[in-house]
Structure formats: C-alpha cells, structure tokens
C-alpha cells in the first residue's frame, strides 16, 4: 500500500488524504451523545420495553362502559376441492376443535378539549353561556382475557390451540367489540354525562344553572363534507 501511495501523484494524494480526514470526522464527530456512549461503554437493555409513546392531551372521559363477550371458535377440518369435476367437501372425523374465550373490555367515551378555544364559547349580555363541544369519541381503554375460564375441546387427531392461535381469536374478539360500539349508544350517554360533569363546573364559575347550555358541534371530516356535497348535488 505504501508503495502504491508513493507512486501516486500529488493531486491524487491530496484527494485521498482529504477523503480520509472527512471519513474520520464523519465517524467520530456526528454528535456528542454518541461519543459519550462510546467512551463510557454503557450498554442499555432495550429488550423488555419495545416502544413507549408519550403524548400530551386534554380529554375528559365522561362515560365508562364495561363489556363482556365470549369469543367462540369452531375449528372443523374439511377436505375440500374438486376431483374429476366433482366437488368434494368432507368433514374429517375426530378433527374438531372448539374454544370459548371470555373477554372483559372497558370502553370510555371522551370529549377532546385539545382544540378548546373562544370559538367554543358563546356568551350573551344577559348572563347566558353556551358551550359548544365536539362530538364525543369512544375508545377501548383496556381489555382482559379471563384465562382461568377459557374452555377448549380438541379432537384426538388435532394438536392443541397454540398461543398464536389464541391471541389471534382474542384480537378478532376485540375487533368485534369495536365494531359493536355504534350499536351500544355510548356516544349519546357520553353527551348527557359531559353535561352533568361540566354544568356544576360552570356553575361554580358564577353562572346560574338555567343560563348554561351545553351544545354539540359535529366535527366534519373531509368524508362527511363529500357526502354532504353529494346529497346536495343529487337534489
């Protein structure tokens, strides 16, 4: 290498040296934090905690609903297909598996106060106040699988339910609960509940109860506006 280096022209040497210096500078001087870590040889155990996301917010949870659901799954093995233009659908003997998983979930409805501003307040000179709130939103805040109460039946030629299969059924159960939210009527309950929470607060601020109105403003999303425009154009 030194032989080749001595044979190089002055310009080539200069370029090579500059590139080497730039490379060293880039590796060592990216930021002070990285340098500190290298010199101290500190190792951080990141395995137990994968991700932690912290978010500032302002949500007033007004209604809590506890839901119970038994997720069931019938696992029947069938031989299906087509042979000599004949459809085949044969249930294999002793191949059934069944599982029932009881799930308890908590749904909470909240009013998002993150964008609460003067636009949400309407005051009149005669001492009346109207608070315009966005529509409540619902969130599945927690869920618990009753592990002790899980019941499963496995056919003689089948293997037991694996942890992966069980968690997959539990996830499907969770999705089914989320899908059922519009039918549960929690949003309407949350609206009334928010009024019951906020009116005493506003009363303490010096307003008379009969002068306080809690109203709801629908947050129009682009999809809603498109729907509205479509209806208008049809008319």
């Amino acid at each position, binding site marked *: 290498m030194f032989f080749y280096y001595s044979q190089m022209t002055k310009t080539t040497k200069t370029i090579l040296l500059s590139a080497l210096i730039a490379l060293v500078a880039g590796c060592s001087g990216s930021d002070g934090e990285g340098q500190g870590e290298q010199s101290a040889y500190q190792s951080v155990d990141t395995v*137990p*905690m*994968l*991700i*932690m*996301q*912290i*978010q*500032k*917010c302002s949500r*007033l*949870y*007004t*209604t*809590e*609903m*506890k*839901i119970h*659901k038994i*997720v*069931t*799954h*019938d*696992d029947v*093995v*069938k*031989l*299906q*297909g*087509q*042979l*000599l*233009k004949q459809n085949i659908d044969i249930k*294999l003997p002793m191949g059934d598996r069944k599982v029932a998983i009881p*799930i308890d979930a*908590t749904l*909470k409805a909240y009013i998002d*106060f993150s964008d*609460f*501003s003067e636009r*949400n*307040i309407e005051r009149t000179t005669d001492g009346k106040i109207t608070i315009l709130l966005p529509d409540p939103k619902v969130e599945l*805040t*927690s*869920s*618990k*699988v009753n*592990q*002790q109460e899980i019941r499963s039946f496995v056919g003689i030629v089948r293997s037991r339910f694996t*942890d*992966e299969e069980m968690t*997959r*059924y*539990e996830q499907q159960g*969770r999705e*089914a609960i989320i899908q059922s939210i519009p039918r549960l009527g929690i949003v309407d309950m949350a609206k009334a*509940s928010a009024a019951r*929470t906020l009116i005493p607060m*506003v009363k303490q*601020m010096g307003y008379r109860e009969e002068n306080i109105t809690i109203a709801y403003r629908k947050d129009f999303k682009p999809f809603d506006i498109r729907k509205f425009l479509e209806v208008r154009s049809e008319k």
Partner: protein
Amino acid sequence: MANKERNNLELLVKALMLVAIIIFLWWLLIAEKDNHVSVEVDDGINITPEQIQSIRDIGQWEFLSISNEELVDTVRKGLFSDDQLVRIYYGTLRLGIDLSKTKKNWISAHGDTVVVKLPKVGLLDKEFIDETRTKAFYESGRWTARDREALYRKARRQMLSHALTKQNLKTAEANAEDHVRQMMKTMGFNNITVTFEK
C-alpha cells in the same frame, strides 16, 4: 366364413374399446386440470353478542397518555430443554385528574379572578392493559392459564415502572395547569390561579 366374421367382430370390439379408452384418458387429462384437493380450516370466530355489564358516569380528565409495548417472557427449566413463552403486551397509561376527587368549591370565582384547586395528578385507571391486542411471539412447551396470568401481571408491573415516573407525573401536572388556565381564560377570567392538592 363364420370364423372370419367372428374375427372381424372381435376386431371391431377391440377398436371400439381402444377408442373408449382414448376418450376416457383424454377426458381424464382435460378434467385433471381442474382437480385440486386441500385441507381447509376456518380461522374466523363465531358471531356472539356483546353484553353490557355496567355503565357509569365518570369525570376523568386525561392530560398525558403513555402508550406502552412490553416484551415479557417466562422460562421453565427442563431436563433436556427449556420451555419458553414470550408475548408482547400493549397498554396505555392515562395520567390526569379525577374530578370525582375534587373538594367542595374547588373553583371559586370573583369578578375576573378565579382560583382552581385541582386534585393530585395520578393514574386514572388501574386497568390499562389491552390484553386482547397481545401478540404471541414465541412458545415452546405447554403453558397453563396460570402462567399466562402471571405473565400479564409481570407486563403490568413493567409498564407501571416504566411509565408512572415522577417526570411523567410532573409533565402531566404541567399540561393540566396549562389546559385549565387556557380554559379559564376562554371562559373570560383574567386572573387565574391553578393549584394542586398535595
């Protein structure tokens, strides 16, 4: 003569059989393209109802949300090999104030001055793990409901130790103060004092 006729008849039968075999094989080859047999297993859950167990009014004001993912494992030592169960749990710890803990006259207003005394910022709900979101990462050996329950409790402990820190409580308190102050300003107060119970 009769022999010749019989030979001709045999020949005709053989030719017809050959044609029939050729037709059958041709049909079989054509049909072969559509032949397929597989073992099918239904992977979906059945439709079951959701039962509402309870509904209640709450007044929990959340100011900091900490979403957590925890990788939790358990190992059982065996004679020849070890059994292992590894799962990823998900949970969201919500820090804020519980309005049911407010004392009488926690908001006192005089003219354009308001004094708000809020309860201590804390964990709003002790149940914060969404166990139905859990992902099975690795499983070897046989594990019981009790083992899974223990794993859940371990995940819960880990989430609490990682998320319920003094720093996060302080951040939640600062955010609570900002939002309450902003809200009171919106309500028309100019002199606002926000304090927290000790």
